């Protein structure tokens, strides 16, 4: 518990460092650029310089992996394969078509992007472990193909006549230094792009995607698209690293694509720090220098790497970058400077006026217009749900108006959460329809339902560790869902989202929590943060799954007050076991038992209904 709080505090401070008055993404880029250029200019012609350049090629790959694997938890083992694509592509164009390396590189990058898009569309349908296992096959298939066909030299490898530096008449030293500078510039570019993405509003989308895909979808993140974008980003960065590798080493060995290469990349990432772009760069440097350090180390590199990785992870799971950051923050604490709160420039506005403007959903449905005579917001028509022969929902029908507080009760296993999932879109019904304001949304995915104004909480808490309360609520206020990741290199509307989030927090009396990291909060407060997140986008329909669970009596009363206030503006449907709370606040109560709706009525009827009494209360 101690470690969790400490590490999340460090992460929040780190994000504060990046997000402060300096234009976002510039700090790590400048660091890499300055150090790299100096190094190449001073030592470029010596052995240590060439190791540095080699490491820089790998660092481009690991930077992409930091974004893809480290921050967004999209574990794909595709980078070594695409490093091979980049390297072999350049080698082939240079050897067989006499194309200069510097021209071949962008061509190969475009080709890699296309292959990555094709491959990614298939592979990113899977999630989590399935994704990892599916992509684990890639290096195995690739190496089998390369050594089997003797493609481009097979096990012997492919030499290149050309170098990265375009002028063939230049001396060797100029070519070396020049080539090295080109690599450094591109590395700085890669770091810049990564940092810009991570500090943008889409960065928050990626973080919540990494926490839990289902939650991300319910918050409007277009998970299939983001996963594909991340996959392509990782692959293109890898291809660039590979192309530059070929250009600077003038040789492509078969070991570049085999599974141990992929493992080596992972070691670089995790030693350096998976949630840190700079860390990824450092990791590449450390491993490459180790491999060239001494003969003994080079021969026994496996032992050294295994030992180093174990020790580093034991000290700090966030790798060397984590160790450095802890050291820095301890030093600052020792020197007496208070750590910044990490609000990143967001200004907390005055307490908002009681009437909030309803946020127009990003995508207005173009189906039939709302029939003013029929004020129903949500209509569930004859919904059935079966899981392999087991009937979970049977012929459930209900309607909800535009405003009000409604409760869904029932014994355990009655199907309440399933019904919420059907309304929220994460579970399609076997039969029946879900109709929102007259439009049939039964087949719409969860992120689209979010745009339509449906917002929900889940039974378990899914907040982004290491980020502040403000940022966690801001995830629900993003306007970036329809934009591509690439646009965030240029601009970000994170501040807008943070402003809206701070208003939502103020409305709930939680403004004082805005700067706290979520891991330091108690479970009850975390649930309130999730509630704030669900309310922040001014939803039309709010689905709450057991919001009072684990709350004390005082907190329940406060929750009841909040819900009553919200219900004057929105329709709220809550699944709840606390019958006293339910009868106190709801204007209508639905009771599910064994998948069927057995009661639909007001609190008085609820208290006196014989059906309800036998089921829930016991006569």
């Amino acid at each position, binding site marked *: 518990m101690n470690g969790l709080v400490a590490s999340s505090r460090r992460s929040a401070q780190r994000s504060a460092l990046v997000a402060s008055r300096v234009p976002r993404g510039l700090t790590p880029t400048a660091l890499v650029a300055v150090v790299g250029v100096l190094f190449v200019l001073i030592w470029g012609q010596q052995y240590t310089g060439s190791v540095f350049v080699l490491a820089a090629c790998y660092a481009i790959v690991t930077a992409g992996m930091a974004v893809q694997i480290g921050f967004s938890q999209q574990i794909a083992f595709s980078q070594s394969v695409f490093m091979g694509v980049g390297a072999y592509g350049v080698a082939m164009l240079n050897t067989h078509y006499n194309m200069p390396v510097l021209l071949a590189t962008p061509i190969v990058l475009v080709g890699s992007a296309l292959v990555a898009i094709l491959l990614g569309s298939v592979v990113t349908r899977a999630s989590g472990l399935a994704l990892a296992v599916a992509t684990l096959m890639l290096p195995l298939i690739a190496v089998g193909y390369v050594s089997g066909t003797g493609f481009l030299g097979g096990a012997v490898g492919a030499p290149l006549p050309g170098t990265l530096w375009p002028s063939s008449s230049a001396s060797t030293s100029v070519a070396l230094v020049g080539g090295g500078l080109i690599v450094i510039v591109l590395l700085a570019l890669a770091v810049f792009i990564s940092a810009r993405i991570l500090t943008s509003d889409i960065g928050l989308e990626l973080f919540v995607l990494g926490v839990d895909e289902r939650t991300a979808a319910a918050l409007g993140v277009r998970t299939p698209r983001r996963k594909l974008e991340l996959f392509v980003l990782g692959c293109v960065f890898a291809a660039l690293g590979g192309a530059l590798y070929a250009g600077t080493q003038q040789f492509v060995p078969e070991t570049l694509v085999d599974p141990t290469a992929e493992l080596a990349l992972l070691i670089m990432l995790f030693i350096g720090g998976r949630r840190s772009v700079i860390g990824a760069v450092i990791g590449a440097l450390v491993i490459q220098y180790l491999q060239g350090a001494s003969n003994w180390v080079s021969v026994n590199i496996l032992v050294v790497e295994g030992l180093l990785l174990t020790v580093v992870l034991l000290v700090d799971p966030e790798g060397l970058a984590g160790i450095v950051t802890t050291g820095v923050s301890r030093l600052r604490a020792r020197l007496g400077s208070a750590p910044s709160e990490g609000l990143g420039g967001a200004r907390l506005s005055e307490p908002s006026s009681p009437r909030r403007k309803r946020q127009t959903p990003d995508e207005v449905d173009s189906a039939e217009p709302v029939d003013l005579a029929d004020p129903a917001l949500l209509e569930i028509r004859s919904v059935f749900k079966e899981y392999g022969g087991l009937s979970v929902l049977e012929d459930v029908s209900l309607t909800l108006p535009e405003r009000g507080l409604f409760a869904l009760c029932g014994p355990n296993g009655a199907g309440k959460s399933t019904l919420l999932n059907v309304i929220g879109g994460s579970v399609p019904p076997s039969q029946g329809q879900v109709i929102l304001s007259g439009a049939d949304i039964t087949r719409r995915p969860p992120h689209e339902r979010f745009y339509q104004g449906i917002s929900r909480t889940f039974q378990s808490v899914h907040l982004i560790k290491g980020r502040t309360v403000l940022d966690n609520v801001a995830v629900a206020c993003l306007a970036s869902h329809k934009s591509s990741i690439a646009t965030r290199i240029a601009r970000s509307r994170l501040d807008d989202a943070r402003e809206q989030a701070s208003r939502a927090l103020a409305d709930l009396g939680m403004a004082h929590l805005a700067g706290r990291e979520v891991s330091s909060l108690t479970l009850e407060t975390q649930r309130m943060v999730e509630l704030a997140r669900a309310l922040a986008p001014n939803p039309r329909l709010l689905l709450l799954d057991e919001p009072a669970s684990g709350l004390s009596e005082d907190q329940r009363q406060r929750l009841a007050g909040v819900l009553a206030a919200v219900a004057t503006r929105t329709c709220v449907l809550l699944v709840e076991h606390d019958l006293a709370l339910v009868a106190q606040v709801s204007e209508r109560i639905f009771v599910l038992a064994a998948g069927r709706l057995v009661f639909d009525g007001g609190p008085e009827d609820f208290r006196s209904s014989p059906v309800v009494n036998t089921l829930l209360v016991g*006569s």
Partner: protein
Amino acid sequence: MTATGSTPAESAPAESTPKAGVALAVRNLSVSYGNVVAVHDATFTVAEGDACAIIGPNGNGKSSILMGVTGMIRRRGAVEIFGAQARNGDVRWAARHGLTLVPERRQLYPDLSTADNILLGCYTWTRSIGKARRSGPFARAIELFPELNLHLKQLAGTLSGGQQQMVAIARGLAADPKILAVDEPCLGLAEAVAKRVYAALAKIHQQGTTLIVVEEAPRRALTLCNRRVEVRNGVAGDSVAGAA
């Protein structure tokens, strides 16, 4: 031992026999999770044969008291079980000296059968499966909830909430405890089931086991218990009513 299951705390305090020993003595107990202090200072005693309710609002430390006392979590302060100093953080020690916990949210083994779940309660006092199956405590545990008989071979994860709570209590009973500590027995249960659970607890108490029950809603607990300990903000002490 005169405390019966139906004496409410508001009436004249039930008298324990003068010679009843102290089953559990807790002094200045404090429990922390990292930086968060859940229990500051808890001091109370439970006499043999008592049924003691630990009540107070959620989030005030009731469960943490039980976790600290039974050794599930490390604690500071003194705990004595039947006069012996309890070893800090040692669940097996506590179990061998007669204190068994039925934890919050049941914590059953979902892919093991109901019978196996209950049988594992015997692990506190034996490693032999044969002895466990033939033992008195196991038999008593099975008899306690006849409605489980049809489900003995069923996987515990497929039972309803109420049935799972019964299994959890049966597992506690199979450990042959002298003191049974039950944490929030009716969490998430329908009223009818909660009544059944309390009837079983009353029966256990009648058979001579000392009971400690943690409950957020005191009404039910106080129909059973003759003592209560109130917990507020991590501080717990013997209450005035019914103090032994």
